[in-house]
């Protein structure tokens, strides 16, 4: 399951596909691309609470959390 935070959430929820099957070749980077999110606006990614690189390959049942890049003051 993919969860988007802040401005990234709408990309996940708009497509209605925040739950989808992944195969072993599917990295976090591929998921971000699939959801049509600008990868520069994803600051951090966690999988089941652990910080991962965008090259990480999640497994079925994992919770993938995408944190938006935030820098306003």
């Amino acid at each position, binding site marked *: 399951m993919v969860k988007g935070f802040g401005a990234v959430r709408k990309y996940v929820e708009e497509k209605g596909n925040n739950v989808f099957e992944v195969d072993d070749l599917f990295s976090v980077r591929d998921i971000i691309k699939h959801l049509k999110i600008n990868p520069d606006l994803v600051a951090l990614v966690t999988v089941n609470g652990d910080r991962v690189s965008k090259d990480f390959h999640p497994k079925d049942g994992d919770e993938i959390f995408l944190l938006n890049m935030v*820098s306003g003051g």
Partner: protein
Amino acid sequence: MEKAILNKLKERSTTVSGPDGNPLAVLSLSERDSLCRYFRLSPREVELHSLEAGIVPLRYLKNIGTLSVEGQRRLLSSKVAVVGLGGLGGLLVELLARVGVGGMLIIDGDRFAEDNLNRQILLHEKGISLVKARLAEKRVRDINSAIEVERWEGFVTEKNALHLFSSVNLVCDALDNISSRLLLQSTCEQLNIPLVHGAVAGFSGQVTSIFPGDASLSIIYGEKGIAVERGTEVEEGILSGAVGMVASLQAQEVIKILTGKGAALQRKLLVIDTERGEMRYIQLQQEEKT
């Protein structure tokens, strides 16, 4: 402390019921000012003498149950830089002045613009086009005359950063762009002082405290050469409540670090999205899984 000062402090103080129910000696603002004139000391100096004698300036009475007299003394003897005096920084200087952080270096090279009115607490309608650092300085002095405040009407650069922060105990990152935030981090690293980071966009925001060696901003934003200079606030804008929430959390981090109370958000990013009422911590210390 000179005995004469101690004697006068005792003479001019009154007794109230303290937070633990026991009698507590307090000093009113008018008596403080009278002692400033008598001994030719600054308000901050008199308040520090007072706290050292266990006499609480009345203005801080409601801090004492949480911070203790010694914690208040530590705050008053500290100097903090607030970099960026927009949404986050404007509220931070207000909160830090009220709680009694005794020295403040406030930095911003900008003037207020009309579209700042939705969230920047220092700005009122007649303040548009005024220099942010000047309004911030006035606000601090109006709130707490014991605060020794210096302002820098300019931006932090690689040339001036080390010099600017050489006399402060802690820096608050209330900036609005990523490269300047990373410059603050490297400067604090060199000066061996903590940095309290806050950032906002739309309904959401984040806070963390960075100590020398942590380099947490490099984890969040990437190293130098990052692809973007700003985040999703470009499309989302910033709501005043998100600013208030994050600046308040930053102020609490400053208080904890300076007094040694509680636990700072070190190597831990607190992210809050009020649109759904969600918050979570992201651990920043471990290597990411690949």
